[in-house]
Structures are given as C-alpha cells and as structure tokens.
C-alpha cells in the first residue's frame, strides 16, 4: 500500500469543557479525495486548522510528506506543500485578483523578502498565477479588484490562490459553500481532475458533490470520527444515517 501523504493520529483539542477534536485519526492517500462530513459544530474546521498548523492540538500527531509536522508553524507546512482554502474567503480585498494569486505563488518562487523589482514584472511568477486563474475560469477578471467579485468568483479565487502554491496536498474547507447549483457542478468537475495532481481532504456540506467525488468519506460527530469508508459504505451505515444523514432526510 502506498504511504499516505498526510496522516493524523489520535488528535485531541478542547476549548474549555468542549472537546472539539476527540481522538481523531485519518489519512489522505495519493490520488484520492477524502471527504470529511458532519453536522455543524462537529469540529471539521477545527481539525483542518490543526492540520494546517494555525490551531495547536492538545495531543496527537500530524504527519505530512513523511515528517512529523505537529510542532511546525503554518508557514512551514505551507512551504512543504500543504495548500489550503478557507471556509470563509480569506482574500486581500483591496488587491486585484491577480495580486492575490501571485501572493499564493510567492513563497515557492523566491519569497517575499525582495524589495526592488516590481512583483508584476516577474514573468515566471505571473505565468504561474495566470495559469492558476485560467484553471478556475477567472482569466477575464485578472485585473479586477477582489472586492468587486461576486461571492461565487471569490470561492473560485480562493481555490486559485491555493493552486498557485502547487501543493502536494490540499485542505479545502467547504469550497462549494454558497456557490449555487451551477457553480457547484463546475467546481465538482474541476476537483475531480485535480486529485490526480494532489490529493484533497475535502470538508463539504453539499452531499451531491461529496458522493460524486469522494474516494473515501469520514464522518465526524462531536469531534469523533464515527465511520470511514467508501460512499456506498457510508450511505449504508445505519449509525451514520442516524447521527447525521438522517437530519437531512427529516
């Protein structure tokens, strides 16, 4: 079996009396989309935060690219190739669309401690950024101010910024949120192809997208993984239906 790109072992995190992450173990293998589903407040974003590095776990281990990264800060994990999109778009609103994506590519291409040559004259950097924008379908909006984008376009830009880093693995926290049927379908198609480049740990509420995309699904409830399996296995599990999917049917 191939070594997982990313793995989490016995992770625990409490906020006061609340156990937001309660002994979570899961992994992400090359080429797969591993979906993480669960009701609101189950601890999905908290888990993503601990994998990305901006939330410190109380206990447990995060391994990425063959290394224990539990003690590493967010920036170092990103430079190792861990790309991320946020549940609530985290974009520089005053900057142009292109500038946001260039920012995403900066760390991998020379870093930010360069003080003289205009960043938008760096051909290689621009090429990488424009390619990422093209892939999410924002080529026509390169020069627009990010604040002027629609919600859906911001979600696309969020993905483009992560792409620009050319990651070895993606963490995506509800990339479809608020996209509408058409937008979700497009992004689903795009993520489908993306997994060949780098595996994706995908937090998503859109069940159509999850069942269409996921190679494996883990169900998180009250900070615990109650089941992991293929789409069929999860659909068939009574425990999952009761704990989670049942809510949607009701």
């Amino acid at each position: 079996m191939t070594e997982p790109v990313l793995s989490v072992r016995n992770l625990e995190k409490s906020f006061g009396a609340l156990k937001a992450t309660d002994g979570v173990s899961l992994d992400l293998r090359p080429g797969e989309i591993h979906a993480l589903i669960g009701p609101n407040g189950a601890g999905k974003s908290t888990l993503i935060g601990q994998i990305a590095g901006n939330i410190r776990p109380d206990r447990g281990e995060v391994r990425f690219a063959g290394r224990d990264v539990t003690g590493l800060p967010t920036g170092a994990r990103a430079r190792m190739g861990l790309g991320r999109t946020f549940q609530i778009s985290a974009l520089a609103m005053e900057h142009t669309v292109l500038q946001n994506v260039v920012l995403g590519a900066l760390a991998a291409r020379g870093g930010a401690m360069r003080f003289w040559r205009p960043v938008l004259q760096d051909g290689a950097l621009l090429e990488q950024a424009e390619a990422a924008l093209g892939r999410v379908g924002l080529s026509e909006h390169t020069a627009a101010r990010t604040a002027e984008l629609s919600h859906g376009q911001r979600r696309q830009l969020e993905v483009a910024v992560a792409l620009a880093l050319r990651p070895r693995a993606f963490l995506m926290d509800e990339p479809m949120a608020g996209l509408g049927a058409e937008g979700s379908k497009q992004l689903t198609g795009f993520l489908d192809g993306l997994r060949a480049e780098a595996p994706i740990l995908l937090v998503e509420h859109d069940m159509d997208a999850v069942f269409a995309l996921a190679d494996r699904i883990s169900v998180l409830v009250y900070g615990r993984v109650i089941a992991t399996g293929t789409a069929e296995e999860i659909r068939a599990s009574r425990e999952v239906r009761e704990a989670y999917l049942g809510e949607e049917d009701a």
Partner: protein
Amino acid sequence: MRERHINAILLGGLLATALAAWGLDQPFTITLATKVAILALAGVGLNITLGLGGMISLGHAAFFGIGGYAMGILASHAQNYTPLMEAPLLIEGTNSMPVIWLVAIAASALAALVIGALSLRTTGAYFIMVTLAFGQMLYYFAISWPAYGGEDGLSIYVRNGFPGLNTLDPIQFFGLCFVLLCLVLLFVARLGRAPFGLALTAARQVPARVEAVGLSPYRLQLVAFVLSGAITGLAGALFADLNRFVSPAMFSWQTSGEIMVFVILGGVARLCGPVAGAALFILLEHWLGALSEFWHIYLGALLLIVVLFARGGLIGQIAGREAAHD
C-alpha cells in the same frame, strides 16, 4: 487627477518654493521648506508601518530621537575634540554628514528591530501602548543622561559638513534634504510594488491567508518596522542638523503624534501623503501660529474633519480611490 501628477506637483512645488525664496533672498522660507522636507521624510518612514503594514505605531519619536542624538553625540565629540570611547578601540566624533547618517540609520534600525520584535507580539491598542511606552522610556532616558545635556539638550555650533557642499548655505542644505527625500520616496515606491510590498499589504488585510501561502506576517511586519524606523531615524539626524540642536523633546510622544498627523493629513498609505501633510502642517503652524498661540485647536479641528469626512487625506481627496501602489 492621477496620484503620480499630484506627487510631481507636490515635490515640484516644494523645490520651486525653496528656489524662489533663494532668488528673493529669503533664507527663512528656505528653512521652512527644508523643515517640510525633513518632517515629510520622518512621515514617509512611519507610512511604511502605518500605511502599508497597518501597524499603528505611536512610538516613532524613538527613532527620530535616536537619529537626532546620533548626530548630537558624534558632532559634540568632534566639536570638543574628545573621543567617544578610547578602550577597547578608539572611536572619535565626526562632523561628516554621510557618516552621521549611516550611524543614525544603523542605530535606529537596531532600535526598531528590538522594539518591533517585542511590540509585534501584540496587536491593536496594546501595540499602540507598547510602542508609546518604548518612546517614553527613551524620552526619560535622554532627560536623565547628563553627559549629553540632559533636560537642556545639546547645541552644535557649526552645521556638519558634506563633501563638496557648504551646508551652512540654506539652499545647499535644502538640496541635500530634498534629494534624500526623493531617493527614499523612490525606494518606498519600489518597495510598495515589489514582492515585499504585496506580502506586507496582504498581511495587513488577511494575515491568515499570508501564513497559509507559506509566508510569515510577523517577519514581514518586523522588516517593515525596521525599514520604517531607519528612515525616520535619518530624518531625525537631518532635523538635528537643521536646528543645530537636539533635546529630549525629539523623543516625546507629541513628536510621535505629529509625525502621525503628517501621514493622516496627507493620506495614509499614499506615497507622498507625508509630503502633503508636513507641508500643510508647516503652513498652518506658520500662518495660524502668527494669529494665535493656540493654533493647535485649528489643527485639531482639521484633523477631525479629515478623519471623519475625508479618509485618504489631502491626496485621497484629489486623487480619489486609487490604490496607492499599483
């Protein structure tokens, strides 16, 4: 009007004012123009942290004062023919401006590194308070340091020299300050468009994103703070040379406040905002100050108007909502 044109008019106007005053033999006006150039330079320094970085430092008097005292200490030793230090190595005073500038830049950059490293661990109101506290510490230190004049400050009788120039000639000293201002403005303009400027301005807006793409907001802000402190320190050395006098007042929190007023009046994050702000400040001080010793009341009213109704300051009003650096 495009911001570039406004900048050209501002700098051209400052130069023309000094040249006209020279032609009309009005050295006092040249001195006022020199003061504008120097105070603008101090503001250009602050604008890197405040405008690009979004860090509200109320302690930039620390760097202005360090630059001033770098000049005062070196020049006073040269004036008295006493070395600064004999053991372990001999360090003599100097009255060479280039040397003084380099020392002022290095000393204030070092101070900014220390102050920045500590204060950047906090944000918001705490950051303002920590920077203010460092400024006040240096203020009281200067007051209680008798070797360099203590409370009374330090007078330098002859202006320091620059190779090939007569710095006592007001127009020549203005020229030096003006060229330095333009060089620093060029540097800051490039900085804003360079990778560093992009990352720094992004760190002000979305630090979480900057981290997620593999950069460190803390390091970006610290480097910005050091560059900013170094520039304000250079302005302090020039200001001391303009007055041929340094005193603890350069370290006072009022000085920090005034530097911030230049930036806000002219336009936060606008390249030449501090030039517009310093010019306006000096004009008001000159005109209103002649009418009433309470001219600061009018300044306060103006500041309120800018903050409440004219965000973006003078330059923002004329240039409109144009991003500062693209």
